[in-house]
């Protein structure tokens, strides 16, 4: 990186102005500029220019107009979609289709379908965690003591093998699980975990269209934070009242355990 014989190029001089030089090369450039005063003056002018541009532009910050309010943009985007799934769900119910599992929209995975899937997954995960994690006595239907039964039951209902990941290495123990319903009458599964302090973590598994694939995405609402992702026909959501970094760590364990990482 810092071969002393390396010739000094115009690009190096700009990198010097912008602080983008490879480590250790700076003294060489400074020696060169001292030895070549004309270039030195030109580079000094570039440095002044850079500072003046920043001083003139970087300070300008005005209040955001409503149309640039992200929360508002998000709401505008979600509203029509929420309406769309209600219509679609209504059709599914009316026609008696949309059996176990599966996703009611078909065709190639467009950004809108992906956004819709993520939005449904997020809403269900946050709502489910809010209701069941707060329930001290009955957060689950089948306890970890009957784990074999829990697996069998949920696998039967979801129409695919469902296994609660072992999160002992992450400091979380399985309390048990329960069956959930989706908006369009399909089955989803919830596993509940807690740590030594009794802090709860919920993991939602919801069958989705096999062509959807979404990497780890953050969700959250107040203190409740979560990560969601979609892989191999299954949507996953891990939710807990934990800092983002902690959740990322746990999500890493979950993905490794499930083989979806």
């Amino acid at each position, binding site marked *: 990186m810092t071969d002393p014989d390396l010739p000094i190029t115009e*690009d190096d001089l700009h*990198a010097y102005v912008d602080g*983008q030089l490879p480590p250790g090369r700076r003294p060489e450039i400074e020696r060169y500029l001292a030895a070549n005063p004309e270039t030195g003056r030109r580079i000094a002018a570039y440095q002044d220019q850079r500072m*003046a*541009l920043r*001083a003139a532009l970087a300070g*300008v910050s005005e209040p955001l107009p409503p149309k640039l309010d992200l*929360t508002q943009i998000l709401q505008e*985007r979600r509203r029509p979609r929420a309406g769309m799934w209600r219509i679609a769900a209504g059709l599914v119910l009316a026609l008696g289709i949309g059996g176990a599992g599966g996703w009611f929209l078909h065709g190639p995975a467009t950004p809108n379908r992906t956004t819709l899937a993520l939005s449904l997954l997020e809403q269900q995960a946050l709502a489910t965690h809010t209701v069941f994690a707060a329930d001290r006595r009955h957060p689950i239907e089948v306890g970890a003591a009957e784990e074999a039964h829990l697996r069998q039951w949920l696998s039967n209902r979801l129409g695919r093998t469902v296994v609660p990941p072992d999160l002992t290495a992450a400091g979380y123990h399985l309390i048990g699980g329960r069956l959930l319903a989706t908006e369009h009458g399909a089955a989803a599964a919830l596993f509940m975990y807690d740590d030594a302090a009794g802090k709860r973590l919920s993991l939602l598994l919801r069958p989705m269209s096999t062509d959807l694939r979404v990497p780890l995405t953050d969700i959250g609402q107040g203190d409740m934070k979560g990560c969601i992702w979609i892989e191999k026909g299954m949507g996953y959501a891990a939710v807990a009242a934990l800092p983002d970094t902690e959740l990322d760590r746990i999500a890493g364990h979950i993905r490794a355990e499930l083989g979806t990482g």
Partner: protein
Amino acid sequence: MTGLMASMEACIPALRRYARSLLHDRQDADDLVHDCLVRALDQIHTRREDGDLRAWLFAIMHNLFVSRTRRNKTAGRTVSLQEVGEDTLSIRASQDVHMQGRDLLRALDALSEEHRSVLLLVSVEDLSYAEVSQVLGVPIGTVMSRLSRARERLRLMLEGETTPALRRVK
């Protein structure tokens, strides 16, 4: 609001600043930022998780700007600096650098859009040369030559007295 949303929100002032350097009208600039945010939310799942969010947003905005400019090429008209009112000037200096800033910003406006983009992304927005190359969709060598020419032209304009951009129109 999730962490990602908060990070995106933090980029909005920089996006507005850059949009105003591309488009001379503040309203147009904010429209461009709005469209950029909508598109970013649509495409958020396609973003590489390890990539820099700011560079990604700048790239989306730049692509929107390019396709819009291409579309409007026939209908568009060039507004000369003298026609532009002080309050619609693309970029406004803060008070304390007003005098020095005004000359500088006029000179900046006199640069070609290609040169101005590179100069601002590098000098003001602190993107790396590699990120600028991604944002603008040009090779890094092109970024460096544009940067070099932009800086030299700006220097000559500010040091010289009879550059076209600063000459008074009678």
